[in-house]
């Protein structure tokens, strides 16, 4: 018996102290977020002293017309930018995947992935300079700048899952369609496109989350009155904040969490 216990204890996977550090890391990773969420339900004004449960800060957030405005603008921008990015990334994925090497391919990859490499602050001030110049020339100050900036930034994120999905598709399916007298357009419409849908959906969701999270680029590109939820929060954090900010952050987290969970399931079933 004693021997069996000793045997069970010696596992080749165990390294002393590793389990402890790992568990501590998970706790450290989640504790600040959990505290943030808990205090969004605080009845008092404090973010460190618990005064009982209440939804007053959620009510305050919903009744705050500025919060409503910036949230709606964020959602609109994320849907618009992610949609454009998904369409453009799908076309680019069709042009670069399963086609063999062609001249200029490396340059296309470099351009598509460039937003991933360049720090957001550099892209931000580059766009600030560019947009300022265009504004002087044209006088246009609408949302177009933000849509273009977010779309460009979302393209590499949308491209990745679409390309990954496309790579797993079997050429034989399209060949079979062609054998059955399908035109290339029909083969694409009825075979390739439906099979690409999970990748396209995942790409859209990734783009949506990325656009929703983007703060630095928005901060430098936006004109007056074009605050999104993240830039509004960034501005508010300088002042003394109330649990209303916790409530806003919690709702924001819940939205991200839902999308990430959905993304996780879409990409996981893909592998099977």
């Amino acid at each position: 018996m004693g021997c069996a216990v000793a045997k069970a204890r010696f596992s080749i996977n165990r390294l002393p102290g590793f389990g402890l550090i790992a568990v501590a890391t998970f706790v450290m990773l989640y504790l600040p977020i959990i505290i943030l969420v808990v205090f969004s339900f605080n009845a008092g004004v404090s973010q460190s002293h618990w005064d009982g449960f209440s939804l007053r800060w959620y009510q305050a957030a919903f009744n705050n017309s500025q919060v409503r405005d910036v949230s709606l603008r964020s959602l609109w921008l994320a849907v618009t930018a992610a949609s454009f990015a998904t369409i453009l990334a799908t076309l680019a994925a069709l042009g670069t995947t399963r086609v063999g090497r062609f001249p200029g391919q490396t340059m296309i990859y470099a351009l598509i992935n460039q937003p991933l490499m360049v720090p957001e602050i550099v892209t931000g001030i580059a766009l600030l300079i560019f947009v300022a110049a265009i504004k002087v020339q044209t006088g246009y100050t609408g949302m177009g700048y933000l849509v273009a900036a977010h779309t460009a930034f979302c393209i590499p994120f949308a491209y990745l899952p679409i390309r990954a999905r496309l790579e797993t598709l079997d050429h034989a399916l399209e060949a079979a369609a062609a054998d059955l007298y399908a035109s290339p357009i029909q083969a694409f419409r009825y075979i390739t496109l439906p099979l690409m849908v999970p990748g396209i959906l995942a790409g859209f969701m990734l783009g949506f989350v990325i656009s929703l999270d983007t703060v630095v680029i928005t901060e430098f590109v936006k004109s007056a009155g074009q605050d999104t939820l993240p830039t509004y929060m960034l501005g508010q954090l300088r002042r003394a904040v109330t649990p209303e900010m916790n409530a806003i952050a919690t709702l924001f987290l819940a939205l991200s969490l839902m999308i990430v969970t959905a993304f996780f399931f879409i990409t996981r079933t893909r592998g099977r």
Partner: protein
Amino acid sequence: MRGHGWKWLLCTPALIVLVLAASGPLLIVAVYSFLSPGNMGGVVWEFSLEAWFRVFFRRDIFEPDQVAWNTAHLQVFWRSIWLSLQTTFICAFLGFPTAWFIATRPRHTRTIWLFLITIPFWTNLLIRTFAIQEMIRNNGTINAVLIWTGVIDSPIQMMFSEFAVLLGMAYVFLPLMVLPLYAAMEKMDFSLVEAGYDLYASRLNVLWHIILPQVKPGFIAGSILVFIPAIGAYVTPRILGGGRTMMLGNLIALQFGQGRNWPLGAALALLMLVMVVGALIFYLRVVGRSDGVRRG
């Protein structure tokens, strides 16, 4: 020979947007760094090397020929590099055991642990920085708990320090270290670990001679993935560091705000880009070399 035109045609819409709203503006930054600053921000179209000069040096206000190192800038560069290196180290120290923990779970629970690491990765960086701010503020959670338990009488000042920035960056960038490390460990050959123990190797020997060499690519990838956003950090040092513990990103932003020196800001931004590209080239070199060793 089939034409490649249609492939380019499919890519063109995406490339146009990328060139207009991502790559193209970078070229304009390069041009602006060689111009003269306008009085109210913006530029005057006159060629000048003053911005690049000011990145490293400064002139005496009264005697412009007196030149000295711009110590304020050098301090910010050094802080950016040093804090980024420390962040990378902390993430590696915490990330390696965490990735190992996940990789050694049974297959069905592994997905859950992995998901737990992925969630913070996809949640807003601003909100996670806010969560850290809530913890370390003077009337935040940590101080409240310490005062409540009687360990201290008055709050410890943690915000607006290098420590705060370091803590925040390690917190927000940690998943970037764990994920590639995990990917490397998942591919690892555990029978070699078993063989090591069979040959009476100590745990330390197994870790050093068997596990580390196999997960080295993951380590390097993770370090680069943490170091690059840390060098480019703007939000975390702005919220947790304040004006006295600026990093390069904040110094750049300052030139487009109160500083009103766009050419200097453009030159600083290019300097940051050079650092990032340098780190990437270093990464490709190291990976290329270790591949060569394996093949040889």
